[in-house]
């Protein structure tokens, strides 16, 4: 009888201690990202006696104490799926908004030093030259503003190039991250699989895996498949990156443009059509946003070079005695990267062909070049005929950049709020509450104390039996 009570009290001591261990573990991890609080599920031990032919005759079954039936994660897996969906969007818009913001910084408009203002100054310089074509000072102004304009084109284009290279590097980094996460998830799958065989809940491992899945979601869009043996599989565009205990990987291959394409390790392309995650975003920013701006700049510079040179060729250099126009190239190059002042013009101010005739006061060509500012030379994006002036075109592309950046920024902020709220929802069930843990601690502590008291009581009773019984007449 004493024996049974002692065993019962002992089971309680053990169970409450284990529960306190879990409480302690919860508190210790209250600030660990991705940690889910764990709960101890108590169950009464098998009562005694079990019905059988030889069961001792006694009034009824007596309980034999408590066991810890399971230690489980308190987690809302549905919220996890919702959360990951938004994290994919967050990753996409965060990266896109960042890239567009960088383009905006490069373009630096509206400002007194941007391309818009420089083009205006360039036209004005030609206006001044048209009034004073014989004057070397006004010629020098044309030369210097043209130089500044060409250098600004070079600078903007160079900055865009290096941004594009940064984004390309980010694509490569993303792929390395994905591969590393995939390997880690496979390893955890393996450990959880082994733990599950012996019917334990691999709570902490599952937390780790969920955290890795959240990290992966920020980079790439995937579908999670639960294999019902403790392992999960990750499906990306119809092919499995992680399949239970097997792992596949991505690789990057330089494409025709000199940038990285993402492929499966066997060389088939990765289907990234769903616009989610950082990887897609980096690729879109690299191949669309930056490329578009580069193309616009190139087409602007190219048309400027052609139009100015066409007129310049029809002009006469200062001091010319030639009967036919002898204007050299004004600009050389074909795009924003290569545009430069021709050496003829940069070496000799007289070689600016301002005149429509070879008389020194003729600024006819300079005036025509100045009037290019009002000429519809540029084909706006989405149009096929030239309907815009140089300045119109530039304004339009900068404004469109603004619209894109504004949208990306708004989406990013929305996603930030959304993921924060979803995370809160997740934490509502899974987060560690110190108050709650303290309450549990008191509960377990009291239960432990009470069980210990029972041991003491039984000890006292045993003391009576052992030391004070059988001493009649002593």
């Amino acid at each position, binding site marked *: 009888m004493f024996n049974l009570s002692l065993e019962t009290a002992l089971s309680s001591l053990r169970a409450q201690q284990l529960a306190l261990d879990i409480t302690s573990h919860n508190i210790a991890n209250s600030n660990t990202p991705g940690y889910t609080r764990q709960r101890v599920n108590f169950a009464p031990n098998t009562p005694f006696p079990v019905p059988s032919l030889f069961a001792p005759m006694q009034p009824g079954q007596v309980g034999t104490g408590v066991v810890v039936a399971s230690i489980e994660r308190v987690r809302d897996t549905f919220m996890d799926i919702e959360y990951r969906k938004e994290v994919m969007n967050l990753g996409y818009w965060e990266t896109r908004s960042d890239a567009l913001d960088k383009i905006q910084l490069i373009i630096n408009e509206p400002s007194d030093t941007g391309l818009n203002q420089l083009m205006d100054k360039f036209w004005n310089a030609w206006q001044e030259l048209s009034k004073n074509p014989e004057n070397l000072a006004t010629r020098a102004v044309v030369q210097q503003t043209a130089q500044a304009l060409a250098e600004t084109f070079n600078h903007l284009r160079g900055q865009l190039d290096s941004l594009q290279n940064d984004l390309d590097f980010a694509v490569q980094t993303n792929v390395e991250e994905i591969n590393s996460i995939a390997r880690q998830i496979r390893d955890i799958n393996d450990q959880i699989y082994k733990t599950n065989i012996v019917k334990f809940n691999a709570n902490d491992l599952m937390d780790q895996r969920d955290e890795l899945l959240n990290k992966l979601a920020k980079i790439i869009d995937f579908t999670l498949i639960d294999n019902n043996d403790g392992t999960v599989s990750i499906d990306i565009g119809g092919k499995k990156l992680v399949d239970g205990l097997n792992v596949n990987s991505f690789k990057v291959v330089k494409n025709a443009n000199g940038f990285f394409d993402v492929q499966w390790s066997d060389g088939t392309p990765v289907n990234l059509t769903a616009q989610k995650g950082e990887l897609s975003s980096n690729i879109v920013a690299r191949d669309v946003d930056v490329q578009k701006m580069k193309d616009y700049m190139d087409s602007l510079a190219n048309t400027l070079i052609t139009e100015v040179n066409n007129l310049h060729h029809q002009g006469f250099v200062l001091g010319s005695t030639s009967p036919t126009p002898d204007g050299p190239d004004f600009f050389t190059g074909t795009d924003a990267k290569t545009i430069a002042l021709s050496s003829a013009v940069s070496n000799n101010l007289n070689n600016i062909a301002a005149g429509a005739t070879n008389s020194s006061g003729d600024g006819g060509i300079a005036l025509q070049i100045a009037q290019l500012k009002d000429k519809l030379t540029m084909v706006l994006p989405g149009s096929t005929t030239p309907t815009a002036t140089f300045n119109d075109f530039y*304004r*339009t592309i900068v404004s469109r950049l603004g619209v894109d950046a504004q949208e990306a920024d708004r989406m990013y902020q929305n996603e930030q709020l959304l993921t924060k709220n979803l995370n809160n929802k997740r934490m509502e069930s899974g987060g560690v509450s110190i108050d709650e843990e303290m309450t549990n601690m008191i509960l377990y502590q009291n239960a432990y104390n009470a069980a210990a008291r029972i041991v003491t009581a039984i000890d006292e009773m045993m003391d009576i039996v052992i030391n004070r019984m059988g001493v009649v007449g002593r």
Partner: protein
Amino acid sequence: MRITPGMLRDNLLYNLNRTLADMEKSQEMLSNGKALTKPSDDPVKLLRAMKYRSDITQGEQYQRNLDDGLNWLNTTDTALGELSDLLQRVKELTVYGANSSLPQESLNSIAEEIRQIKEQVGVVANTQFAGKYIFGGTEVDKQPWDGTAWQGNNSGVYFEIGNNIKVQVNTLGSPLFTDVINTLDQIINHLTAGNVSALSSDLGSLDNNLNSVLAARADVGARTNRLELMQNRLLAQLESEKELLSKTEDADIAATIIDLKNQENVYRSALAVGARILPPTLVDFLR
């Protein structure tokens, strides 16, 4: 609903960050006075602001072109006025020479004075504006009248004073001055030859010359009027464009300060609330 310290912390951080971002925006607007600092702030306003900026820069250039043109025309008018005065004097002298039966010595001295006047006509023909000879067509850097022959050409000098509006600022000296000098040469010849009867027909040529000068002055006057009209219009236009640019681009300082104050209050409240809700847990009350 369970609330955990993690949630409180996340919410607090999110709100602090958001308010800080708002405050940063307001402070930036106040420190540079601009509501537009990058395209995404307001792409539509940006489009307008950039257009206004271009228009203003271009308008200021037209303004300079107009000023230069007007100065050129004024110089021309003064020169033509002087030419007209000189011709009047020649006319007086010629009439005097034709009507009186003067001895040859007197005719010679009249001829001498007209020769001097002819020199002065040459000086007028070589009038310069900002270092340029204004009557020589586009040959602005050599004297149109070198004393014996006309060196300039008959090409116009055009300034742009509006979108694709060109105006000729120079007056072609070649027909005007060569006719005048021819007439003067003839008068001098007739005077020195004592051919008084021929002087009356010279007077007719002189009148034609005077009429040409008057016509040229009238033309200069008309062009001056036109440029002044353009100038006034441009001034008014520039003023309204500058105002529009300021309205589009500049921050509303009063409104921004009030916004900033509001954001500061929100930030302070968020901080205060954070300070109160974060530390206490049940731990503080367990002894």
